[in-house]
């Protein structure tokens, strides 16, 4: 069968349909393009550029905003000297100005009120809204203690609110970016190398000879400098090996695509270790000098032969051997990439540990073309009194998970649902810059928590779903309209970048630092806000760093010299931050806490008859659910589609572009329908969709009702016993061709 642009012919109505369409005569007469062009050309000459850094995703590329005489931002261009982007933004960064100009933005503070028995929002002044939040914060503190007021956060606004919460006495803080995303890899790598991966990942892709991606879809995730470096690696003739049940974009660029059976990655990783050890392909000097537990590992993987793995992963033994040898040949310039969104099946920290151990065997940590040792500039803290010590906080809520190193969103949500046995009840939330509804699985749980809370305030730029549940909504201005903290991230060379307002905040929106400060003032926390404008904080910090706001305004990005070496030189002494001081193939610590000291493969649930595993991933044009309504990015991709293998489509009788609904294993029905994409890029046991679509807030005029929210369909969560990560890939869906909401 063939699908192509041509097949639209078949769905076209009989030719007379054209009669209805014709050009609007008035519009044509009303236009004067010559003047339009003239004005445009005139102003194009006088664009002013201002330095800032991007907030459309967490990569935070530094950029120049070009604005015209009217103060309108015309375009955003990457800063050439910024290592995060090298002068080239991704589509979301380039289209970031759409965030500013989105007419659906939150415009003014709103307070929930009841009119004639119906709940609605009324417009409020900042004074009113902030007073209300502050009074609730006071009440909660008096009644339950400050700890019962929780903060959910993401991105730059989060840090301003975090300061407020800590000063107020609450450490009940979490962000979905940890337990719903990259947490397990930090645990897995910390247990092995004694170091977090962090962001941006210290993968030396630029100079690698072999890049191994385990489900990681670089190119669909637009982690800017990584995408750039992968392209460089292709130019340099590096071998890319991609393990993914779906032909991802990266897989299509790979020399070897291993179309693995979902949920069996650990078996493959163990078999690779088996081959590398059995065939003596590992880096002997490196292992001798830097690792701990090699003999135990050797014994452990002895039985995990490629033949054993074949039965589990469906990858042929010779393919496993061939790829293992390619990796070993390239070592130490080889990267088995840790990935980023790694909460899959509940044993994710162990899978990440397997990845880390494989890297250890190949000797790639600390080596050129492997993992470089990252370094960042530590920002001086603007002086304020010590934070009070809360009685409990995120750590207490996550105590079941000994390796949790940040707040676990799902545990905070659980603690918000009344339960007599809960010693740490949460009574109120502030949600800043994260749309929990489309980010955290098990929507019913969230709604249950929200229903029992005494108060919720939401700070966002857009009317995301979560705002619909708030008692108070505060409109934050976008990143192009505000100061934020200085960006200091880990990279090959440390650098800092400046964010400053390019234009005045639109509507009645305010920056998060101002919201934080105003709330702090109302809570008598003046000592923590010893400034009138956040600019003063930045100025002070920059001067401490030996530069100045004036300089940063000129350059946007400033690089610093490294204090430590980029790589571990051959034979150098190097102490890893683990209990043994070495790379731990075997973890006594894990064993002492009753966990597997070395990763083992466990069988994960399979889709029942008639169901398909729901896989999801990133569209390169969008950041999660937050950019779907951005006019530029929405024009690129306005809805997601359900990828279905042609053979499956044939069996269940669905066609390309047909609208279908989904029902998951727990009977949860998708609110909206999704169009089918019949494609060979996906196998027979799973379906795939882009994450972040299917918004159900009508105020998002472009995003509302477009596609299905994968998060909605995820009600089954496999929790990682090490760090509380929520494995999301164990959900199975049935494809419905009839609208289940009819009647």
């Amino acid at each position, binding site marked *: *069968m*063939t*699908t*192509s*642009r*041509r097949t*639209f*012919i*078949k769905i*076209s109505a*009989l*030719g*007379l349909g*054209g*009669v209805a*369409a*014709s*050009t609007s*005569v008035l519009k*044509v*007469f009303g236009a004067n*393009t010559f003047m339009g062009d003239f004005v445009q050309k005139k102003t194009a000459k006088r664009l002013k550029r201002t330095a800032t850094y991007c907030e459309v995703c967490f990569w935070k590329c530094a950029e120049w905003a070009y604005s015209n005489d009217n103060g309108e931002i015309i375009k955003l261009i990457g800063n050439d000297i910024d290592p995060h982007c090298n002068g080239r933004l991704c589509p979301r960064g380039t289209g970031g100005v759409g965030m500013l100009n989105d007419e659906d933005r939150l415009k003014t503070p709103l307070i929930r009120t009841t009119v004639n028995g119906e709940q609605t929002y009324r417009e409020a002044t900042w004074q009113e809204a902030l007073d209300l939040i502050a009074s609730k914060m006071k009440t909660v503190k008096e009644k339950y203690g400050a700890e019962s007021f929780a903060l959910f956060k993401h991105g730059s606004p989060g840090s301003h609110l975090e300061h407020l919460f800590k000063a107020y006495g609450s450490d009940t803080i979490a962000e979905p970016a940890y337990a719903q995303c990259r947490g397990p890899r930090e645990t897995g790598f910390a247990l092995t190398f004694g170091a977090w991966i962090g962001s941006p990942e210290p993968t030396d892709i630029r100079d690698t000879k072999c890049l191994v991606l385990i489900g990681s879809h670089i190119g669909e995730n637009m982690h800017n400098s990584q995408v750039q470096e992968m392209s460089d690696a292709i130019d340099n003739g590096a071998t890319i090996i991609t393990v993914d049940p779906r032909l991802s974009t990266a897989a299509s660029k790979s020399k070897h695509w291993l179309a693995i059976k979902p949920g069996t990655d650990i078996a493959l990783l163990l078999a690779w270790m088996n081959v590398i050890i059995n065939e003596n392909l590992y880096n002997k000097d490196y292992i001798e000098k830097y690792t701990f537990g090699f003999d135990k590992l050797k014994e452990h993987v002895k039985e995990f032969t490629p033949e054993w793995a074949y039965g589990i992963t469906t990858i042929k033994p010779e393919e496993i051997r061939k790829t293992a040898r390619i990796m070993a040949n390239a070592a130490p310039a080889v990267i088995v990439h840790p990935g980023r969104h790694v909460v899959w099946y509940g044993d994710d920290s162990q899978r990440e540990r397997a990845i880390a151990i494989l890297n250890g065997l190949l000797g790639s940590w600390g080596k050129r073309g492997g993992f470089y040792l990252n370094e960042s500039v530590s920002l001086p803290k603007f002086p304020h009194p010590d934070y009070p010590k809360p009685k409990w906080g995120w750590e207490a809520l996550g105590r079941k998970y000994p390796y949790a190193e940040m707040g676990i969103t799902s545990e905070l949500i659980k603690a918000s649902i009344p339960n007599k046995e809960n010693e740490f009840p949460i009574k109120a939330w502030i949600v800043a810059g994260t749309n929990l509804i489309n980010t955290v699985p098990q929507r019913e749980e969230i709604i249950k928590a929200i229903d029992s809370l005494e108060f919720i305030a939401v700070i966002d730029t857009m009317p995301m779903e979560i705002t619909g549940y708030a008692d108070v909504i505060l409109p934050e201005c976008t990143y192009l309209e505000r100061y934020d903290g200085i960006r200091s991230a880990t990279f090959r060379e440390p650098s800092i970048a400046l964010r400053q307002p390019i234009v005045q905040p639109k509507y009645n929106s305010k920056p998060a630092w101002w919201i934080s400060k105003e709330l702090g003032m109302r809570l008598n926390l003046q000592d923590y806000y010893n400034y009138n404008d956040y600019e003063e904080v930045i100025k002070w910090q920059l001067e401490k760093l030996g530069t100045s706001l004036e300089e940063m305004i000129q350059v946007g990005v400033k690089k610093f010299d490294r204090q430590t070496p980029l790589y571990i030189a051959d034979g150098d002494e190097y102490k890893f931050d683990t209990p043994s001081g070495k790379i731990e193939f075997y973890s006594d610590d894990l064993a002492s806490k009753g966990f597997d000291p070395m990763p083992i493969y466990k069988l994960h649930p399979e889709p029942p008859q008639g169901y398909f595993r729901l896989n999801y991933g990133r569209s390169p*044009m969008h950041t999660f659910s937050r950019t779907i309504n951005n006019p530029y990015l929405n*024009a*690129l*991709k306005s809805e997601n589609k359900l990828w279905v293998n*042609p053979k499956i489509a044939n069996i269940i009788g669905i066609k390309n572009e047909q609208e279908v609904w989904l029902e998951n294993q727990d009977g949860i029905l998708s609110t909206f329908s999704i169009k089918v*994409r*019949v*494609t*060979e890029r996906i196998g027979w046991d799973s379906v795939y969709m882009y994450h972040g679509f299917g918004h159900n807030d009508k105020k998002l005029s472009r995003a509302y009702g477009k596609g299905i929210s994968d998060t909605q369909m995820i009600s089954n969560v496999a929790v990682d016993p090490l760090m509380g990560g929520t494995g999301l890939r164990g959900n199975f869906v049935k494809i419905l061709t009839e609208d289940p909401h009819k009647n």
Partner: protein
Amino acid sequence: MQEEIFISGRHLPKIDPFLEIWHWQISTYLFLGGLSAGILFFAALFYLLGKENDMKATIKTATIIAPLALIIGLGTLFIDLSHKLYFWRLYTTVRITSPMSWGAWVLLLITPLSILWVLSYSTEIFPSLNLKFSWLKNFQSFLIKNRKLMAIALIPLSIILGVYTGILLSAFNARPLWNNAILGPLFLTSGLSTGAASILLFSKSHFERKIMSKIDLALIFIELFLITHMLMGMYAGSQVQLEAMQILVSGDYTVMFFVFVIILGLLIPAVLELTELIGFKVPIIIPSLLVLMGGLIFRIVMINAGQLTRYLY
């Protein structure tokens, strides 16, 4: 399975998923242009052949359609322009390679000429009409004196107009359905045939009807031959031409094309006209209207179906 999709960017109005740039306005314009070309051609031809008295409808009454059709056609063409204020740019240049430019200039000549032709016969067409101004009378007598010159000019102009309606389309290499050299003669033939059919509607003389019926019959056969030829050419062509043919032969436009154009628009009128020539009584209005309808639908089909065809890469 092969799949070819747009990842981003392409949902251009009137272009995606298939071209709808030209609509009924262009089909109507091509139909009216062809019709006028036919009427004016026959008027000029039979005038030069000295049949002024035998072929009254052809040379006189029916020609009133020509300027009306041309003006309506120009109107629809104008409606279709999306940057209308700049239409005068057509007449600041002559683009030899552009059929559209040729068409614009031919129309600029033939439209006034057709009005003058009708004016020269105005008193005969409308016997009750009384020219009020003497200068108008003088002008009419001037025109009457120069009818021969007008007829000599009308012959090539009407042929160019008729052929142009086809060449306008066949010049588009990018649309495989249009891109064949037969389209020029085919549209000319079709135009002449619709012209003859309209004359038949006006004709009251048995002699004139017989001649025009015979001519129309011949034109219908030529048209059928050219259509067959066109389809065979496509059948022998490349993949894209085969696909273009399939739209007409076994696709969305098959019913419209075969039922309305071939059967109702060509075969049945041919049979009816033949029946009448043999001597049976057939109301002439039926085959004539069928031919006109066929001509219009043929152009609608060609415009709409042509925009569905494209090169693939």
